[in-house]
């Protein structure tokens, strides 16, 4: 043992010294290696990894490999981004906003990335947004839903968001409930007790009350995040005899609630609307009752329109991952395609170079591009926020083919559910959706 210590000590000192030297020496590995260096940040561990992080990183890898091989159909036939191979630096989003700020700085200054795509957590988006502006790194938020992103960053330059604001999910959900003529004299709510759940419910409640003033709230349940067991909450909801149950549950919590609620017959007499439900479409395997209303936070996943690009994406994803892609995979692909479209527009035909950053930003602002979810227009928040519609539909499971599908799908155009610039979602709902174009 004594001899072992003699070896261990110098070894430990040497390792630490070596680590310190590599740490300081490594920034010399700069970009400009003839590749487009892209930072990809998403949850690889923790509770959000399973439902969101892993599908999104699968989508990113699939798309980036295909782009590098020049195999993507539609307008994206050019290799990589503007003819340059895409090189990725993948970072785990787990661990809190402080760590993400640190890692974002590392991406920008140590790895010298040309752009960053990522961020699922709203807290991370809010923390990263000022840092991206400060460090002048083009940053595409692909999933986070907080309305505060562009309320706090009023004049964005480097920050873009190709995913939709969570307020849209809930305005769309309220419209779906009203348009399918459900009674709303008793509405029950169950949300995870954190910013996402609180904000989602506030928006849905306001929107539904605005559309149907006779709406009455029967019960509001706020179990804690990742609680997993909802016996008490299900009892409370069942006792309140609701016409409609609204939930913004996601991931394991959402699936647990559906299974436990179905076993208790909660969904037999009440319509339940799950704004993030689509991510479990292929996982429920008939354990959920037909008629459950599912959303995908936009025209993603099973709601994606059928076109060459979306069909190619779906087919390649199933071939590689052996599961249908859920909405986080689509949203990640959308962010990368948006960046590619902007970079190639900025390059204006000069392939094989990293286009000038300022030109990419100009090109991305107000850009209209083709995506796996149809055509996307960056037309909100001074051209930095994507405007897209939202769809809801009812879960249908065919026991014979063992395939789940969606019925009674209703889609709402972006202009119908999105507040105009300069108005917060809460103000817009309160004012009665002025200027909403719903096509009917």
């Amino acid at each position: 043992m004594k001899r072992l210590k003699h070896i261990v000590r110098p070894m430990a000192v040497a390792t630490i010294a070596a680590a310190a030297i590599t740490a300081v020496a490594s920034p010399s590995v700069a970009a400009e290696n003839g590749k487009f260096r892209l930072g990809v940040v998403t949850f690889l561990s923790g509770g959000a990894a399973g439902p969101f992080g892993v599908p999104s990183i699968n989508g990113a890898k699939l798309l980036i490999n295909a782009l590098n091989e020049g195999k993507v159909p539609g307008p994206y036939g050019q290799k990589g981004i503007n003819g340059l191979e895409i090189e990725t630096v993948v970072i785990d989003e787990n661990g809190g906003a402080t760590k993400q700020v640190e890692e974002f700085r590392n991406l920008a200054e140590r790895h010298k990335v040309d752009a960053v795509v990522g961020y699922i957590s709203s807290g991370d988006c809010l923390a990263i947004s000022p840092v991206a502006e400060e460090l002048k790194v083009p940053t595409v938020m692909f999933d986070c839903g907080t309305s505060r992103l562009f309320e706090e960053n009023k004049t964005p330059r480097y920050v873009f968001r190709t995913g939709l604001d969570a307020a849209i999910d809930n305005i769309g959900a309220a419209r779906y409930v009203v348009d399918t003529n459900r009674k709303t004299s008793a509405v029950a709510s169950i949300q995870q007790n954190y910013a996402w759940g609180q904000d989602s419910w506030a928006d849905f409640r306001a929107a539904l009350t605005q559309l149907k003033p006779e709406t009455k709230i029967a019960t509001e349940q706020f179990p804690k995040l990742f609680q997993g067991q909802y016996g008490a909450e299900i009892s409370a909801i069942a006792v309140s005899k609701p016409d409609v149950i609204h939930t913004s549950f996601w991931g394991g919590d959402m699936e647990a609630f559906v299974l436990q609620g179905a076993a208790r017959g909660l969904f037999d007499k009440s319509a339940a609307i799950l704004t993030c439900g689509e991510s479990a479409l292929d996982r429920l395997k008939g354990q959920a009752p037909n008629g459950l209303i599912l959303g995908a936070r936009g025209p993603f996943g099973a709601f994606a329109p059928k076109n060459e690009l979306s069909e190619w994406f779906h087919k390649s994803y199933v071939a590689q991952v052996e599961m249908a892609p859920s909405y986080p995979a689509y949203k990640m692909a959308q962010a990368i395609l948006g960046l590619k479209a902007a970079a190639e527009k900025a390059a204006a035909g000069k392939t094989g170079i990293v286009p000038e950053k300022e030109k990419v930003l100009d090109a991305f602002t107000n850009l209209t591009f083709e995506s796996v979810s149809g055509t996307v227009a960056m037309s909100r928040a001074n051209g930095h926020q994507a405007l897209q519609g939202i769809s809801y539909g009812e879960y249908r499971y065919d026991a014979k083919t063992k395939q789940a599908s969606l019925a009674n799908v209703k889609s709402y155009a972006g202009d119908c559910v999105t507040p105009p610039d300069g108005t917060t979602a809460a103000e817009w709902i309160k004012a009665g959706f002025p200027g909403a174009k719903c096509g009917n």
Partner: protein
Amino acid sequence: MTYIDRTGLWLIATAAILVAGAFVLPHWLTFILTLALAKALVVQGVVVQMRAGLVSFGQGLFFCVGGYAIGLGGNLLGIHDAFALLALGLVASVGLAAVIGLLMTRYRDIFFAMLSLALSMILFGVLVKSQTLGSTDGFNVHGVSYLGVTFDGANQKIAVYILTVVVSCACALFLYRSQHAGIGRVCEAIRENEIRVEYLGLSPRWILYAQYLVAAAVSALGGGLTALATGHIDPEMAFWTTSGEFVFIALLGGTMHVAAPFVAAVLFAFVRTYAIEFTPHTWQMILGLVLLGIIIFLPKGLWSLVSRNRRVKA
């Protein structure tokens, strides 16, 4: 402080080198150092109590109070000076510690650990339910000035870095002196045999109370500096995993020397950032293995590498 001995000079010299580094080192490196040193201040709080035999699994409480004082001081009270904000966090944190310390110092061992954890989780719960404070998303800190001077972009980060180094150095000197003064020695005696200390005519409870306040003060400074550096605060600062990380770093460094938490925090930051870079899917495992290795081979922490060398020479 009557004189500064060799260790004191070492601390000041290291701080001077780090300050000079602000103009040489790449920004990402100084940023990692800023966060690591700020975190080390909280670890100092844990170590101060560890030397007296108490393990705090809730030091995140004061870390969070220090951080939120920066954000709320700016948003609600309109204070934008970094020094005033840090002082505000310090006062708030020590004030809180003065009250709950009365309860905490009655407990020892696992009871102290669990109670400290519970109190920090209460703060976490309250913040999560406060929608006006952004719930779990937290909020950003804007427009901080330094004695009337506002910096932009990179310069602001350099200012925070230098401030962090200076505050860390001051805290280190203070803690070093107090460790070698009577009160510091008595803490070790309390850890070894509390009843005997009472027979000597001292009150372990009030000595632990004093240590609890000191720990709260340095932790609040750490939280405040973290908030200034990242520009964002959220309730995660009071979550138990954050407090666990401080204990992790305290074990990594050991309690033998005032410099150990700083060295350990910097090492931890580098191990983590490179683990995330090279093994994005399994970086937690790397951290776990490092801790396991330290516990097995260096049960008294990293600092035993240094102190053993010294003893051989002497």
